[in-house]
């Protein structure tokens, strides 16, 4: 089952520069797991350690925001198009948000380190 996935500029380091990649899966979660086998690290940029989509990454199936389709459980069909866009956000005093992000980055790094230690490739 082929699903087209559009990758934003900032994540193309995981796809060898490719703007569009293909993957397979019955749900968005399955698709991201499949993509991660060929584009290692991509999933960790989209899904938190707790197993939910990052707050400040937008993922769409066709024309719908997956938050309204069940997030990682969103069902996918052959021929669907998935688009990933980093949220455009910021502002003068969002220190709590900034702290959450840096906390998340630390978590992601820790998870990556743990994975590398458990399953060296």
């Amino acid at each position, binding site marked *: 089952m082929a699903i087209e996935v559009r990758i934003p500029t900032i994540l193309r380091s995981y796809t060898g520069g490719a703007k569009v990649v293909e993957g397979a899966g019955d749900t968005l979660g399955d698709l991201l797991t499949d993509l991660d086998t060929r584009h290692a690290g991509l999933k960790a940029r989209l899904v938190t350690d707790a197993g939910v989509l990052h707050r400040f990454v*937008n993922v769409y199936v066709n024309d719908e925001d997956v938050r309204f389709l069940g997030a990682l459980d969103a069902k996918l069909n052959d021929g669907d198009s998935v688009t990933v866009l*980093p*949220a455009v956000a*910021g*502002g003068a005093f*969002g*220190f709590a*948000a*900034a702290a959450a992000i840096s906390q998340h980055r630390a978590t992601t790094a820790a998870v990556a380190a743990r994975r590398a230690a458990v399953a060296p490739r």
Partner: protein
Amino acid sequence: MLSIDRSIVEAIVAHARRDHPDEACGVVAGPVGGDTPTRHIPMDNAARSMTFYEFDSMEHLRVWREMDDRDEEPVVIYHSHTATEAYPSRTDVAFAGEPGAHYLLVSTREPDTEEIRSFRIIDGVVTEEPVRIVDAGVDPHAVQSYMFGQSPATVDYECSGS
């Protein structure tokens, strides 16, 4: 350096004034690879906050698709700070997700003057760049270059047109 048409800067400032004291945000699209902002797209601030902005996710998708269809890219991503200087906050840096864009900040904290500054934000590193405001239809050699409230070290005093 960011070169941007005066009419676009005026539209951005008008948008920032209109939404003050909430933060305003938007995009200026331009042809891919051209580094020239040509089409101003004011966006909704879904956060409707004085200290935070976030594009509405559906509007974001629609506008990014439209740019794709027109062979455009987000040359400028702008937002306003309504009580502080036009310099990227830690939040701005943490969220900056378009490494190819000029991040334009407008401060509307002063009622009569605007501070307009532009930055590259790549991998958490902020680099300020000069802003050159271009008058459309004017001989490029006669272009006047200046910035509102810019630090003098980066003002293009040469008016060189380059």
